[in-house]
């Protein structure tokens, strides 16, 4: 059987961030935000354009995010060289970007995600909230790999946060668990409004 009790999940994917409180195999409160990995890449492209007058591609932006992206100051400075086109002269150039720059670039998106988590916390029934306080917020999805994001969310919400092991594959592993135990877990499937019977 599915365990009774509330769990809060924050799943930061590529296109959307999902924030949900679930209990007994159903969703209690949930928000889907269109701010996630892709938007963070855009943030970095915008930042590099405004600060360094340089145009970079989406893949470069993603590489920067993965290599040195963070939510709170790191113990040691990290930096990396990036190449792009100078917007003033039009010729290629190389600059060094550091973790502080990237943190500033990402701060807006991360702030929005954290504010939405707080909104969800406010909407959560108190009994479930006490479960969540005990078990902590579960962080999943590729976005959870941003350094110190768990620390930042924990500081801002005053709820402990734990990142799930191998966060990139958490959703598909979950579908696997449902498939392997379909007799038990039929209830977690989403019902359509028509007569389609469940598995």
């Amino acid at each position: 059987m599915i365990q009774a009790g509330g769990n809060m999940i924050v799943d930061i994917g590529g296109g959307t961030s999902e924030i949900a409180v679930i209990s007994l195999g159903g969703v209690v409160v949930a928000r889907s935000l269109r701010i996630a990995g892709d938007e963070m890449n855009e943030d970095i492209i915008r930042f590099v354009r405004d600060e360094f007058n340089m145009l970079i591609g989406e893949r470069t932006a993603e590489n920067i995010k993965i290599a040195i992206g963070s939510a709170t100051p790191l113990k040691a400075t990290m930096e990396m060289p990036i190449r792009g086109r100078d917007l003033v002269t039009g010729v290629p150039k190389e600059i060094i970007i550091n973790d502080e720059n990237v943190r500033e670039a990402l701060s807006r998106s991360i702030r929005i995600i954290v504010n939405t988590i707080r909104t969800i916390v406010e909407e959560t029934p108190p009994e479930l909230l006490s479960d969540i306080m005990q078990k902590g917020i579960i962080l999943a999805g590729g976005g959870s790999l941003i350094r110190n994001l768990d620390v930042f969310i924990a500081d801002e919400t005053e709820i402990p946060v734990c990142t799930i092991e191998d966060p990139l594959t958490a959703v598909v592993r979950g579908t696997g668990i449902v498939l392997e135990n379909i007799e038990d877990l039929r209830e977690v499937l989403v019902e359509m409004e028509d007569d389609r019977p469940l598995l």
Partner: protein
Amino acid sequence: MMDSIKKVSRKITGALFGSISKDIGIDLGTANTLVYVRGRGIVINEPSVVAINKRTGQVLAIGTEAKKMVGKTPGHIVASRPLVDGVISDFEVTQQMLRYFIEKVHKESFSFIPRPRVLVGIPCGVTEVEKRAVIDAVIMAGAREAYLIDEPMAAAMERVYP
């Protein structure tokens, strides 16, 4: 009447095929698509990118191969991501991508094994039309039946069902 016959026949085929057909779980993400096969684990983890030759309409590459082309294509080739903000934006291309992934898993088994049942994760709060689009794309891509699960629910499964 027809409905109840349909339901009973589904139940019978479900019981019959359930144990031998390969059930598949798919995380149809904006950035990456992952496929889990019941009894085998995660078998596919590739970017949700499709490269298409616009002149001939031919699909040139799907997944990792197509992602390498992003931003480097000549005018007549488009390397695009068929999903935007977690929902299907280009139905035709999504269906072709799903067909490629489902067939990759399915063709490794004997041909008389029935087509797989597929469980797909979707973002919370998507509309009925967006849900229907996912189901239709999966069915047209070669699934026998399609089912949906909320992505946060799937992500939490390991914790709530130990």
